[in-house]
């Protein structure tokens, strides 16, 4: 187990280096001269060279990359071109908001997707199984921005149960209840696709698990079906299900960008959208980096949880 953890951590470090290289290179793809863009057409060639030197952009790419990584490690992410504020002070509060929205959404995925899949798998080929699996097939194809708009239209505009946008009430902000009230719709919108995929996967693993020899043994020992399914079989499918959930967090984080735009949720995705519209490259760069870091961390947690969930790998050296 210790060996596994060390190997997994080492791999994570390598991936993080890869991610930082990729994000750095991505910015090199930007057409045009960033300094020129920053200073405007009126700036003299001399001034451009001066700023280029100040920013270290006249050095070789590897050196620039090392500069960049050193900055990131010190929490220095550069200056926003548009907001003239440090990128870090803009993004860190938004990171927290995105994590809140993701967590809420993930909770819905787990609370709906897993029971749905388990029930469908336990009643293979029943009407419930067929119905829920058709729904989840359709759900997996839903464009998240469409889901967000439909949800706003129904639950905010027509029924008026929840606010259309934002994270706090504008007149009377604050409090957990206020945030939760604002959280429901965006979290649900972002959860649609991952929930559907998780339900399908959970069903498949459940069907397989219920054909296991130990399940037959439990049934032959008089263990009630309820306990066979929810205690034994569910425990058995946890490692693969957690694995799928971890992968689905990737789709969740991608979808949240759209959801934050539609709901004006003050998170990384909404910020990314604003920055893209404004052409604020330093903010885009760090926004992408932040979301990727969250996903890398989630993958690490997923892999370790899967290993811990299985006594066969847990005890192994």
């Amino acid at each position, binding site marked *: 187990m210790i060996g596994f953890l060390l190997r997994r951590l080492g791999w994570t470090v390598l991936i993080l280096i890869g991610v930082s290289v*990729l994000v750095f290179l991505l910015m090199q793809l930007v*057409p045009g001269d960033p300094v020129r863009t920053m200073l405007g057409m009126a700036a003299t060639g001399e001034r451009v060279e001066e700023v280029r030197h100040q920013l270290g952009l006249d050095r070789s790419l590897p050196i620039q990359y090392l500069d960049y990584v050193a900055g990131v490690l010190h929490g220095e992410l550069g200056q926003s071109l548009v907001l003239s504020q440090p990128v870090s002070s803009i993004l860190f509060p938004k990171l927290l908001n995105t994590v809140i929205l993701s967590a809420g959404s993930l909770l819905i995925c787990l609370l709906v997707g897993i029971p749905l899949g388990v029930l469908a798998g336990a009643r293979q080929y029943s009407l419930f199984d067929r119905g829920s699996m058709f729904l989840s097939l359709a759900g997996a194809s839903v464009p998240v*921005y469409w889901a967000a*708009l439909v949800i706003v239209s129904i639950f905010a505009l027509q029924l008026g149960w929840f606010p259309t946008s934002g994270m706090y009430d504008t007149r009377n902000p604050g409090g957990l209840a206020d945030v939760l009230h604002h959280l429901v719709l965006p979290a649900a919108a972002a959860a649609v696709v991952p929930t559907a995929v998780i339900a*399908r996967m959970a069903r498949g693993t459940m069907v397989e698990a219920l054909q296991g020899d130990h399940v037959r043994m439990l049934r032959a020992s008089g263990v009630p079906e309820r306990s066979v399914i929810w205690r034994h079989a569910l425990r058995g499918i946890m490692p693969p299900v957690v694995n799928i959930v971890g992968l689905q967090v990737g*789709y969740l984080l991608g979808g949240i960008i759209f959801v934050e735009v539609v709901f004006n949720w003050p998170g990384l995705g909404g910020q990314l959208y604003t920055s893209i519209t404004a052409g604020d490259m330093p903010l885009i760069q760090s926004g992408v980096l932040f979301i*990727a870091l969250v996903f890398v961390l989630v993958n690490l947690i997923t892999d370790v949880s899967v290993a811990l969930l299985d006594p066969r790998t847990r005890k192994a050296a």
Partner: protein
Amino acid sequence: MSSEIITSSGPATSPARVAGWQRRSQWGLAMRALRRDKVAVAALVVLVAVTLVAVLAPWISPYDPLVGDPRARLLPPGTPGHLLGLDGQGRDILSRLMWGGRYSLTVAVVPVVCAALLALVIGMASGYRGGRRGEAVMRVLDVVFAFPIVLFAIALAAVLGAGLVNTMVAVGITLVPYMSRVVYTSTVQESAKEYVEAARAAGATDLEILRKQLLPNVLSPLVVYGTTLAGLVIVLAAGLSFLGVGITPPAPDWGVMTADGRQVLLEGYAHVATVPGLVILVVALAFNLLGDGIRDALDPHKQTS
């Protein structure tokens, strides 16, 4: 979706002598199995119909997709003469959807096909006698998988800038690692099988083995994956347009239309956004169902005669 498809295995293999014959009959069997699959056939019909409508849009669309009547804006679906209603600028939504297919389908299907071709080269080159070098290539691709796929596409599109070609490039680059991994995995699996060994013993060159033995067997999982991926990509590409980093207005791309509809949604006119979104959903679902159908059809265990 991708994780689900990556695990799908290639078709059963055969000794070299009968490989060619079995392959043909395998695709033949698959075609027959596919034709019996009502859901897959329905999905195919939907896709063909949507494509035909998009191709024929200049001749069959009732109105100009770009010119609207400002006095008749936001009329609801069912208005006489305007089956699906009018948008915020008084443009006929049905006509825009018909024309929009030209953008939305192109921007999804072309990158999938191009990425598949590129993936065949990368995946087979690393998978067939690639050894550690091939593995290293796959490790590098793992870095891309550390990004949520949607985020990666958005970042690329944002950097490259909006526009038809840029969007296709952004989407295509995003897909290459995913498809390469599928090709790599099946190439490694197939290379280990005895018919490849037999062909080599019979004096076939590497290129011949790659082309005649491996390519057909690697192709089927890629076709399954690509079809299902197209479902994801149609949603993704329209999403880029929705965010303003894909097709640019006033082009009637379905994502652009959904974004337009968002502006008037709060005024209570939901149809402008929801109708194009529904079309994206239906086309994506059709790709997914067709992908499932092809997968089942290629699975020898499910081809009951």
